[in-house]
């Protein structure tokens, strides 16, 4: 199984509620997968700053004095906000690469969950309600977000095996299903220069999309390519800095329901996940078609 939720806001007045809406949706999906949970939330992009979300197995040691150490290494303003096992580093956008390099030297055991202008990813083993309260997701605001609760099949139940997976700047992907050609595809992507943290099939799908977009495709085009290059069962929900996409494999046995109103586009593995959204009674509700790419983008919106 696995449960997926996603929310892409059109109405800016809903942005302060993104975290709480998404949290409630994800908790409803708990019985689809109690192994681990994660959330990607997009917000706060201002054009000049970049964010790196990091995770540590020993946060007390790794996060202690990290802000100070990074400021000294970069000779630039850096802020570090610690949230349980994760921390969000905010720094000037033109210092992002330098910052990531410094981080790798200063704190080699720390794992980067995501980096970009807008994205933050929080994920851990455990139930959605515990993961959400641990990171204070309910109080977060943002423009769009994706949540996942996992029932592991293809790799171990670990923090890094949890979804969302992020393999490129401001990109993330969550998956319900299983891929059967991920080993071959991983080998090809490694040859193209992609790096992998896990043996997980979903990470390969995320890296595939990142690699395709690096070649110049937009998210919609990359998802169309995934339909022919990925073998297996999948319902994917993906996020980019300003976009939100959904695609199901041609067999489409992994469930999906979507709802759209003037205020938002929402995704749920089941309709249950959507029932608390404002105005759901009057929303257009449909099941995404098999092998069809659905894609919304704040920047491309009229």
């Amino acid at each position, binding site marked *: 199984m696995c449960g997926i939720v996603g929310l892409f806001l059109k109405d800016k007045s809903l942005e302060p509620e993104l975290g709480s809406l998404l949290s409630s949706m994800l908790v409803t999906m708990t019985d689809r997968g109690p192994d681990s949970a994660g959330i990607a939330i997009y917000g706060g992009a201002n054009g000049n700053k970049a964010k790196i979300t990091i995770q540590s197995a020993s946060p007390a040691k790794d996060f202690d004095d990290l802000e100070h150490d990074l400021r000294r290494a970069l000779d630039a303003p850096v802020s570090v906000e610690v949230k349980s096992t994760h921390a969000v580093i905010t720094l000037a956008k033109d210092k992002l690469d330098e910052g990531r390099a410094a981080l790798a030297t200063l704190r080699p055991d720390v794992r980067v969950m995501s980096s970009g202008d807008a994205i933050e990813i929080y994920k851990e083993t455990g139930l959605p309600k515990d993961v959400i309260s641990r990171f204070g997701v309910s109080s977060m605001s943002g423009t769009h977000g994706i949540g996942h609760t996992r029932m592991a099949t293809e790799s171990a139940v670990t923090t890094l095996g949890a979804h969302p997976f992020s393999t490129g700047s401001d990109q993330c992907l969550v998956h319900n299903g299983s891929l059967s050609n991920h080993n071959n595809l991983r080998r090809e992507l490694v040859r193209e220069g992609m790096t992998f943290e896990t043996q997980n099939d979903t990470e390969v799908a995320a890296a595939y999309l990142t690699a395709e977009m690096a070649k110049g495709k937009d998210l919609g085009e990359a998802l169309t390519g995934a339909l022919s290059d990925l073998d297996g069962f999948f319902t994917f929900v993906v996020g980019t800095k300003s976009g939100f996409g959904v695609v199901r494999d041609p067999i489409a046995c992994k*469930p999906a329901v979507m709802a759209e109103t003037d205020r938002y586009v929402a995704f749920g593995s*089941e*309709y249950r996940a959507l029932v608390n959204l404002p105005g759901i009674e009057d929303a257009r509700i*449909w099941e995404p078609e*098999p092998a069809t790419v659905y894609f919304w983008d704040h920047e491309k919106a009229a």
Partner: protein
Amino acid sequence: MPVFDLSVTSLREFNSMLHSLAAGANDTAFEVVNPRGHHAVAVGIDAPVTVDIKGSVGYYCAGMNDGGNVTVHGSAGPGVAENMMSGTVVIEGDASQYAGATGQGGLLVIKGNAASRCGISMKGIDIVVHGNIGHMSAFMGQSGHLVVLGDAGDALGDSLYEAKLFVRGSVKSLGSDCIEKEMRQEHLEKLAELLDKAGVSGVRPEEFKRYGSARKLYNFNIDNADAY
């Protein structure tokens, strides 16, 4: 009429009540409010009761129905009326995948669209869909009737046995061993009866095409003996 509010009453309590109704009970009509996508609403009915569900339901609504009349005033999740034995299930909205799967009898009416695998392995159920159906519908259907007023998706009737399929619109593709067949008088009569039972008006049986099994997959052909 007793009303069960699923935001207050537990689903188990409601379903248990349905299962424990004694023969000749006075209350045989029930209303369910706030189903909110709950799974397994009104499964296992084995008495001639009427259940009106005011809203959308999740997985397996009205599964194994034997004699009940269930109406969903909303949409239904996967596996609605799965393995129905007898009775009637009406979905006012859309139905997700494998609606009416393995159904052995009764009538399932879907007023919106049905997703993939509608009527998969049907064994005697009659299904009438006012809208379209998705891919792999009636896969390995053994008996019963699937009537579609709209279009059918890919691989309709793949590996079909003796279920009879009637489609008014287009068929994206036929599955293995499924072919278009001649519409004879007996089929027109059956179709007229099913349309009437499903409350369809203004649609003539002559507007449909009939599809069925070419009977090449499930009948042993002695010429193929070497292949075994």
